[in-house]
């Protein structure tokens, strides 16, 4: 198998390169720093008004398809695809900045080239590009495409009203921003209230600007008040406009002890319109207020094991009955396709899978558990992690073991697996894959 051969080859190559890494002469004596060299380096970097860098990435992935699941049936019913296939992703991320006096500018682009059984595909996106004016550290005006980063949850952010949703299986990945104009006003104080910061944002939605954000040809407004009071981070958010319904949010984060943090998010969304189908495929819709919330904790042990636990209630998510109806509809459509050749139902199922049914976590209740160990066995820059996302309503879940290691400066390796477990007609049991194995090699550079 091409993927396994590649994996073995890469593993041997990297181990060999690590064994022979020459980051410095292998002098095991006491290291002495050359302060004059440091001074030269600092003088050079201190006078540079711009930066340019990023990373190049290669990620081969092996996917084990669950041929009997609803999502693989709607995607692969036309193909005689086997039960496994490999995928090769090449990514180039570029980012740069420039500053002069009170002005600064920043950009980030993302180019993904993918090869799999469907052939080659390329997608380039401008993730962020904005200009900033800071007459003082208290007053900042920015305009352009940027990520707002609202919310305190690690895997999900129900109160992040402007940004695109994160991928809970990889929540630390960069996101594409939205085109906005923002004003920040920040004040610091002595006493229990240490910081207050007010952010106001304007989000236009036009044919070529934020077109996927919501209803076109409207200008929307959002605001966030941040407080650091009694050693607690607090945010209050509001979004209003015609492109999306009005919504209110709140989040908090606090260290109860030096090694124990709690956080939470709460959001109320007015008049959420949801579209769904019954088991026969009849389209239905409903409009109601939705309440979403998240509560989480992070705990660090003396041995630097970090535990993260989050519970997420998505008020806009689909109920168990709605998901079962979708799975039943796909089952019926598939049987119909096999007996009559009529693919109408499966085509509709494929379209629906691009909407709410196909979200990574489409239902209402989820648990997120992550445990990571920093540098076990005194191996620097090695972090094994085990993550699981659990649907407590239908008992299905996934398990995501991963190891990240940086054998050389600027080189990061990540080996990650995913195993999906669930019965028929359950959330994870009906996903496209049974398992996934991916290796990510990322090399960072600065020009």
């Amino acid at each position, binding site marked *: 198998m091409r993927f396994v051969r590649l994996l073995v080859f890469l593993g041997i190559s990297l181990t060999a390169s690590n064994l022979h890494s020459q980051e410095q002469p292998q002098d095991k004596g006491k290291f002495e720093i050359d302060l004059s060299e440091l001074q030269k380096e600092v003088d050079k*970097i201190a006078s540079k008004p711009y930066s340019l860098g990023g990373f190049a990435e290669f990620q081969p992935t092996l996917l084990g398809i669950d041929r009997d699941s609803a999502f693989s049936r709607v995607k692969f019913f036309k193909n005689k695809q086997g039960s496994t296939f490999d995928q090769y992703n090449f990514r180039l991320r570029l980012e740069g900045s420039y500053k002069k006096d009170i002005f600064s500018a920043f950009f980030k682009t993302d180019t993904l080239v993918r090869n799999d059984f469907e052939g080659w595909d390329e997608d380039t996106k401008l993730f962020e590009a904005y200009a900033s004016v800071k007459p003082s550290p208290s007053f900042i005006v920015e305009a352009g495409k940027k990520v707002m980063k609202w919310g305190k949850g690690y895997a999900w952010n129900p109160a992040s009203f402007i940004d695109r949703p994160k991928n809970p299986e990889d929540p630390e990945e960069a996101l594409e921003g939205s085109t906005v104009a923002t004003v920040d006003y920040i004040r610091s104080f002595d006493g229990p209230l240490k910081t207050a910061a007010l952010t106001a944002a304007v989000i236009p939605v036009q044919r070529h600007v934020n077109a996927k954000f919501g209803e076109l040809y409207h200008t929307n407004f959002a605001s966030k008040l941040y407080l650091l009071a009694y050693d607690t*981070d607090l945010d209050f958010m509001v979004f209003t406009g015609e492109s999306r319904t009005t919504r209110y949010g709140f989040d908090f984060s606090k260290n109860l002890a*030096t090694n124990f943090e709690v956080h939470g998010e709460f959001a109320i969304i007015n008049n959420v319109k949801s579209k769904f189908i019954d088991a026969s495929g009849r389209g239905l819709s409903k409009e109601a207020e939705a309440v979403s919330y998240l509560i989480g904790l992070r705990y660090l042990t003396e041995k*630097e094991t970090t535990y993260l636990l989050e519970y997420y209630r998505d008020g806009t998510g689909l109920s168990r009955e709605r998901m079962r109806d979708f799975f039943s509809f796909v089952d019926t459509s598939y049987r119909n396709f096999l007996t009559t050749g009529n693919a109408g139902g499966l085509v509709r199922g494929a379209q629906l899978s691009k909407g709410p049914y196909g979200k990574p976590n489409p239902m209402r209740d989820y648990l997120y558990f992550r445990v990571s160990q920093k540098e076990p066995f005194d191996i620097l820059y090695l972090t094994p992690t085990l993550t699981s996302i659990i649907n407590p309503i239908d008992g299905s879940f996934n398990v995501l073991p991963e190891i990240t290691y940086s054998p050389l400066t600027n080189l990061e390796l990540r080996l990650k697996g995913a195993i999906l477990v669930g019965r028929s007609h359950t959330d994870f049991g009906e996903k496209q894959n049974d398992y996934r194995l991916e290796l990510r090699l990322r090399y960072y550079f600065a020009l």
Partner: protein
Amino acid sequence: MNEPSMRLLLALTLTLLFATPALSLDGTEILKKVDANLQPESFESYRKLINIEPSGAKREFLLYTLKKGNDKIASLFLSPASEKGRATLRLGDNMWLYIPNVGKPIRITSLQSVVGGVFNNADIMRLDYNVEYDVQNIVDEKNEHVLDLKAKTTTVAYDKLKMWVDKKTIVPTKVECYAATGLLIKTLYFKERKSFEGVLRPSVIETDSPLYKGYQSILAYANVKKRIVADEVFTLEFLAKIETIR
């Protein structure tokens, strides 16, 4: 009680009353001088952090750091490319780490290490010693004061410190850091005094730890300059923008 006895009792009471504070005042004064001689109260600096493994392999991180007053410190990673843009903020006992891709800053703890190696966050974002520690005891040796320091609160990274202070220059030469259990966590060595704006300060801090046998970490300072920036720089909202005021 007759009058002489009353006077004797009063004298004894006064002696006992003022004896301990006098010792602690000396210690506190020495500790404040140590802080002033290590770094200005408010400053900017560039620092290089080097982790050295038992094999001799090393990894370097360059940081830009701003400190203001007793409780505010922010650092921005300038290199290597894989860490560029990361920033840490400390406001008293609160510490956050901003990773550009992750988005919002996350709360971190003093005993964690954002760079790996022997230095932890409390070492990299160290406040003045007199802010976090009380002097419990002083021993006068020939060339050095040896101070026993006790953490003022349980949120401080190390429960106790043993600090050797050079009598002539009033700068520490060595600091041993202990956990509440009495376990020696690490030893810091202050070296290479260098003139920063006319004041001779140690420019290199080395550390090793019995918990990381064979590993060594070094923190070297360059361009330490007095700089007072607005308090608003030390906020979560500004953390992602520190590069713009460098």
